[in-house]
């Protein structure tokens, strides 16, 4: 009996040695992505905030399959966000909204050259682990999906992949950054085709930033400390924001953007770029609309170009949209995870 067990163990050990050798051989053959320099550092703050910096003035588009992702890439999107359902359909379907199919995300990654993002439920550490493992470039911890943790967001410092989080105002943004978010976006009210809430969130956000900057100029340290305490955000982050006169990470607009002029409006309000959710692939003219929104985002400060973009689409083709005032409080997505 004992002899048999030790023989089994030996066989098992040989198997593991064999696997380790195979792994080394594969590595030497370049089967995994090579680390070109042994001392290279991955997942540093500079590397994690570097990706969002490269997305500036760009449009990230929600997609549900490879065909839409390729349309987005051809139109000049700087990235795609893979979802199971577009926010408009999430709203319609009800029930629990979760991370997209891994197979669909992987298929999109194999077909486009631009960064691929995907959403995880607020507080769902393991959906994020899965997305990092398959190589998603940017993770959106999103209120569009059904939150799993009422108390906590994901500890984003634990990941090598950057995260983007939504906010309605500055305190929320600073809490997310202190949890390790490398990028911030407005929440707006997703899936409505109505940019009103995103406008409100940007004005609230930057109104508060201006107040902090004024407090700093006046040397009013007390007010900055009060603000940090009230927000439950680190004092250092509050002063840094006041010094910079903006959020210390790249800040995109999101929630209800449906036309080129919507995108240009958000850029004018200080956004570094835009996310478009249902606005493109819930419209009648997704290809033209995608191109037009890319053009209006890059050239928001050139009215002629915004006109050119607006001419590329027809209001008849725009998604119908939902008046935010018609939504019941429990139907709002923006109040999830604050």
């Amino acid at each position, binding site marked *: 009996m004992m002899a048999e067990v030790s023989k089994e163990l030996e066989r098992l050990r040989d198997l593991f040695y064999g696997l380790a050798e195979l792994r080394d051989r594969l590595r030497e053959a370049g089967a995994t992505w090579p680390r070109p320099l042994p001392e290279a550092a991955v997942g540093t703050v500079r590397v994690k905030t570097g990706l969002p910096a490269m997305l500036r*003035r760009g449009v990230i588009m929600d997609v549900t399959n490879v065909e839409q992702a390729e349309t987005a890439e051809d139109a000049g999107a700087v990235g795609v966000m893979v979802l199971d359902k577009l926010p408009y359909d999430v709203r319609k379907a009800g029930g629990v909204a979760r991370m997209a199919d891994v197979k669909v995300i992987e298929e999109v990654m194999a077909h486009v050259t631009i960064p691929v993002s995907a959403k995880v439920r607020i507080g769902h550490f393991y959906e994020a682990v899965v997305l990092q493992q398959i190589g998603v470039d940017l993770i959106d911890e999103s209120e569009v999906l059904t939150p799993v943790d009422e108390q906590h967001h994901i500890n984003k410092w634990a990941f090598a992949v950057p995260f983007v989080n939504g906010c309605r105002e500055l305190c929320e943004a600073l809490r997310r950054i202190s949890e390790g978010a490398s990028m911030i976006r407005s929440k707006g009210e997703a899936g409505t085709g109505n940019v009103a809430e995103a406008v409100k969130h940007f004005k609230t956000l930057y109104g508060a930033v201006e107040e902090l900057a004024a407090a700093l100029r006046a040397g009013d340290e007390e007010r900055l400390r009060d603000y940090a305490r009230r927000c439950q955000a680190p004092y250092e982050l509050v002063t840094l924001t006041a010094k910079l006169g903006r959020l210390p990470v790249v800040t995109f607009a999101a929630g209800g953007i449906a036309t080129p002029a919507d995108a240009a409006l958000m850029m004018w309000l200080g956004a570094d770029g835009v996310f478009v959710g249902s606005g493109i692939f819930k419209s009648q003219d997704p290809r033209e609309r995608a191109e037009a929104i890319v053009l209006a985002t890059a050239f928001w400060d050139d009215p002629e170009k915004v006109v050119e973009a607006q001419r590329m689409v027809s209001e008849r083709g725009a998604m119908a949209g939902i008046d935010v005032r018609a939504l019941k409080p429990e139907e709002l997505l923006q109040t999830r995870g604050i």
Partner: protein
Amino acid sequence: MKAGVLALQGDVEEHGEAFRRAAGELGVSLEVVYVKRPAQLKEVDVLAIPGGESTTIGVLAKRAGLLEPLRDAVKSGLPTLGTCAGAVLMSSDVVDAVVGRTDQPLLGVLEAAVVRNAFGRQRESFEADLQLEDFGQVRAVFIRAPAFVKTWGGAKPLGPLPHGRYGTVYAAVVQRHMVATAFHPELSTTAFHRLMLEIARR
């Protein structure tokens, strides 16, 4: 002196800041121009094409009628620094490591072939100290970075790196008045922007 940054998409502000700091170090008075119209190319003494998505910048440049004027300006001697996406746009031959060949618009001014996303996805993005001829030690930040796999003619490759799939690849290429880097000097050093201002001053 006027330094232009192509401002269609990408980390434009970071390049503007790097030019300003470099000018401060050299004691040069400098104005930074964010280039979005062909006419602006005539005003500037030096140009940076930033990091970003090369497909997006290419599509926008084509739509805004900037592709030809850009190519002409760089070819006729405008000192130009291209980083990451900018380096891809400047190259003559581009393939993606996963997707393969695409028909993205290019300037094709640099005698170099480049592989996009050569080091993998964002998870594999890294920073490291590189020894570069003429620059010394540089802290280099590679974000979903491309790699130079071949150069010819007057192009000189710098910063060899071992690569499991492509053998030896390069982190940068210098060709007369053009400098292209696979990494992002604008995020960590002024050395490259200083060199560009010096080339422009000559």
